């Protein structure tokens, strides 16, 4: 595919979700198609699917922009394309794929992502984390995952070395595609003589206050599982544990998800 195909691909997405279409256009224009593929029928692009590997991991990837042109839904095109994507991911050495799905239901009570969710489940994807009220009040984010390479029989869990980088929060930002869900960006700094390595509960309060002032309703944070210093301040500040994406960074190093509600629920 080339840049000239971007608009045809975006049209496929736009037939379902205009917001996603805009985000996809920016993604493809900025990052290229990379590991994305389309299905064509008589020269017409009818479906798009693919994934992007996470650079700082040893083989995790996120499935992205999986859509079938509305008037071609239900013909098995999506399933065939997605099967191809999985085969390509295995070929490229990806270890585990993740998918973010919403459980949004329309005014008639229909879960509009049910078809997609069922398809992922049919390929062996399982829900690993449910972040409640992630996209909006009542609209959760479900993260599905699938190990592409089976674990070896009798594989021994190796305890990973704990790391203690000096972490400081840099800013708060609203998470894309959400209404009032925020996160903190953070960076690793050089530790000075008397400085603590971990962020403190006070640092978290500063961030939470900043989110409140911007009208945020909920804060989601993610950290690596091999950072022992994060737990005490997070728990003290009232964060709750949502779950973990197992072996996200490497075998034994998971991605931990935390939430803090500002609406008092």
């Amino acid at each position, binding site marked *: 595919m080339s840049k000239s195909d971007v608009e045809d691909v975006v049209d496929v997405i736009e037939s379902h979700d205009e917001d996603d279409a805009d985000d996809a256009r920016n993604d493809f224009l900025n990052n290229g198609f990379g590991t994305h593929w389309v299905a064509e029928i008589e020269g017409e692009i009818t479906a798009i699917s693919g994934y992007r590997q996470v650079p700082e991991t040893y083989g995790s990837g996120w499935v992205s922009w999986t859509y079938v042109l509305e008037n071609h839904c239900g013909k098995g095109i999506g399933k065939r394309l997605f099967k191809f994507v999985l085969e390509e991911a295995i070929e490229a050495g990806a270890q585990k794929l993740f998918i973010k799905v919403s459980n949004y239901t329309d005014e008639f009570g229909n879960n509009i992502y049910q078809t997609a969710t069922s398809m992922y489940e049919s390929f062996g994807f399982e829900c690993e984390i449910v*972040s*409640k009220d992630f996209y909006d009040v009542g609209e959760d984010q479900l993260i599905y995952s699938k190990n592409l390479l089976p674990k070896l029989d009798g594989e021994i869990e190796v305890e990973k070395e*704990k790391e*203690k980088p000096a972490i400081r929060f840099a800013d708060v930002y609203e998470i894309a595609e959400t209404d009032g869900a925020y996160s903190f960006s953070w960076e690793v700094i050089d530790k000075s*003589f008397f400085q*603590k*390595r*971990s962020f403190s509960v006070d640092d978290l309060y500063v961030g939470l206050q900043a989110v409140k002032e911007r009208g945020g309703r909920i804060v989601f944070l993610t950290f690596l*599982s091999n950072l*022992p*210093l994060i*737990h*005490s301040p997070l*728990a003290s500040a009232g964060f*709750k*544990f*949502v*779950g973990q994406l197992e072996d996200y960074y490497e075998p034994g190093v998971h991605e931990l998800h935390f*939430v803090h509600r500002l609406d008092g629920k």
Partner: protein
Amino acid sequence: MIPIRDDNPQVSVPWTTYGLIGCNAFAWMVLQSGGFGESFEPSICKFGLVPAQIMGNAAETTCDGFTGFGLLSVLSSMFMHGGWMHILGNMLFLWIFGGNVEDAMGPLRFLVFYIVCGTGAAVAQIWSDPNSLIPMVGASGAIGGVMGGYLMIYPRVKVHILVPIFIIFWTFRVPAWAMLGYWIALQVIEGVVSLGSTGGGVAFWAHVGGFLVGATLIFVLKDDELLFDHPFHGWSDNVDPASVWEDPNNRQK
């Protein structure tokens, strides 16, 4: 009772401990001629700490012709020793306990900790006999501080000790609180007994003073984040910090 080693893992390279042992060895071999020769006794007079002189209670010391280093002798005396057994004993204690205390605060802070403990030891010794004309030398006060700090953060760690019973040396493993508690109790008792005596000998109050400063200062300088690496720190078993999320109240409802 001689400590041989402890069961505490060394996490980081103890650069300051190595450096201090090197400095003591250098001072002993170069400035004090390894305890031999004509320059040995003058080195004690020159670099040792004379309480009466520090307090301005004496113009001269027992060392004829030497006026000492004044306040700087607080520092210089920490690196001087009175004999081979003195320096070897001190360095053995520093080797065993210093590295782990350094682990708990990092090399720079440990250097500050060591010097402040040594200074506290000097103050205690001066307090015990401000008119003393006898020069005090030795790293034992500062190392007493290291032992005080060690007791506060690693009380449960097993220390292997060598105990002579009749003519045979036996080894035992005892918790640090027992070994160091016994040691400091002995220093206090000997210190009380030695009060009022005018002769030379072991500076027990320097040991006590250093120990107390170390046991206090450790709470200012220790870095709890570094202590995560030590399985035996504290009085109780350490728990996985992530276990806080096992509480249902700390999980997303």
